[in-house]
């Protein structure tokens, strides 16, 4: 009749299992996919991330030298990070914070497009 009682008593005396979240933040695991960040200085506007995004949330404008993402459509699959030849998009471990108004993130690059030799990474 009281099979659960043992477990309940054990839980009662073994201390809380709850993570005291806002008071104590647990460091995310090393491989956690949290959010994508753009390092716009490295961007060569090759458009590969735009082509690889399954949710069509990245828009790259070569003429205006802007790179924009709609973070409220991004599904954090990491495809853009994988195909980027110059490490202009990196994966951050921390999740994106909740907001009251959603706006796309637009990054503008100043000066000429850098001539970075694309590393042999991802698909040719």
């Amino acid at each position, binding site marked *: 009749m009281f099979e659960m009682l043992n477990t309940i008593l054990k839980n009662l005396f073994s201390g809380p*299992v*709850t*993570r005291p*979240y*806002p008071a104590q*933040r647990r460091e995310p695991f090393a491989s956690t996919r*949290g*959010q994508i960040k753009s390092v716009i200085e490295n961007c060569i506007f090759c458009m590969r991330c735009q082509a690889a995004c*399954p*949710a*069509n949330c990245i828009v790259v404008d070569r003429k205006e030298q802007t790179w924009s993402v*709609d*973070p*409220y*459509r*991004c*599904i*954090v699959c990491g495809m853009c990070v994988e195909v980027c030849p110059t490490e202009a998009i990196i994966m951050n471990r921390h*999740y*994106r*914070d*909740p*907001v*009251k108004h*959603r706006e796309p993130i637009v990054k503008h690059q100043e000066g000429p497009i850098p001539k970075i030799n694309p590393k042999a990474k991802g698909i040719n």
Partner: protein
Amino acid sequence: MSLVALSRKKSPWLLHFETGGCNGCAIEVWACLTPVYDVERFGMVNTGNPKHADVLIVTGCVNARSGRVLRNLYSQMPEPKVVIAVGVCACTGGIFHDSYNLAPGADRAIPVDIYIPNCAARPEAIIDSVLHAVDLLEEKGRSYDARRS
């Protein structure tokens, strides 16, 4: 602070509605209610009755049929009320934004106050947003009380 305002702050009740979508965010909302994340620490209770609820948590993408249910639930909730859209599907439709059966975002059906991005939303982000919602509820409650008196 009046007693009503205090009780709003100390014990907001949650109503969770899954509008459609993949369930991923919905299980993260349940994970928030269970021992490891436990939002009940903040006095929050998950209720099934919209007339008891202060905070509406919407997960998943809204289609025509569930949009009708969602509006129905929203209109039954007492003032002041806060709506949280959890996950990219509830924010903009996410990967399904192009589908024939969906509206891009829950805000096409009801006004949304807080958006949580990510697919699926992490429990920590849900706790954050619920705590934001408490502040927002207090703010909204003040203007609601001022309007009424």
